[in-house]
């Protein structure tokens, strides 16, 4: 899969939550787009990432 412009080796589909854990993203502080479409927060636990998916994950920090 492609994550934020980087190619990541992926043999089979894996749960999105596993990707988030592996790359240390806090699900409460992010927005995720797959192949140009936003993944609703309510769907995080049901979403599987395919080997040819292109993911963009934006993470927010506090202050403002």
């Amino acid at each position: 899969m492609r994550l934020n412009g980087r190619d990541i080796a992926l043999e089979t589909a894996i749960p999105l939550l596993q990707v988030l854990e592996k790359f240390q993203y806090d699900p409460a502080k992010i927005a995720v787009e797959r192949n140009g479409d936003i993944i609703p927060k309510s769907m995080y636990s049901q979403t599987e990432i395919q080997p040819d998916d292109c993911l963009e994950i934006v993470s927010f920090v506090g202050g403002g």
Partner: protein
Amino acid sequence: MRLQVNGHPVDYTGAPFLWSLRSAMAPASEVTIVNGYHTNENQRLREGDQVVLIQKGQTPLREELEAMLLARLTPGVYERVRSAKVGIAGLGGLGSNIAMMLARTGIGLLVLADFDTVEPSNLNRQCYGVSHLGMQKTDACANQIREINPLVQVQTYPHRITARNAVSCFGACDIVCEAFDNPCAKAELINAILEMEKGPILVSGSGMAGMDSANRIHTRRALRRLYVCGDETSEAREGVGLMAPRVTVCAGHQANMALRLLMGETEP
């Protein structure tokens, strides 16, 4: 030749030079602005020039005030932004400063949302003064806007914005500037707006604490309908405060990106 002078269309038949026009129409003006540029030269006038002549110390007529307030905008900007609706989520360091900049730029409608009141620790970076302490931020910000550009319409929501009310608050806006403090609240608002099928474009602020180089603050298009301004790493925490220079640089990035989007530019 046809000119626009202080917002009025004028059929000018005198000598095609700025000082001649001034003598004919407003001899006591000291400030002369042509097509957004303040000039002290007796330049040749051209068909369609937008001229603003201002006499200092004089209160202008209402119908001339509009042209004078916006005389320094790039020509064409006001015509586009006066019908724009921009939401500002949070009226703290980012949001209150974004509100001031967009009000000065002549945005038609600003939708302001913040549940909080002004307290003294806000004053190191937010647009408020001592006279606003204790006021609802929505009221204080609306007052400041009225003071700097009375032409701007304002809607206020003195409530906490969550996934449940984000769409009813901001759904009709062209652009929403996300200016919350808490990263979970940022994510919640951003996701709620991005989950709309056809919703506003978001311009978010993330990472502007401390006094690291301001050159690290950038704007990038992070997702199809989300631009992020900030350095995306400097979070407010113990030992790293939020201070006016860097916060305002980030707010400036957000306000400038909002203006660019309204003018049809999608590049950061």
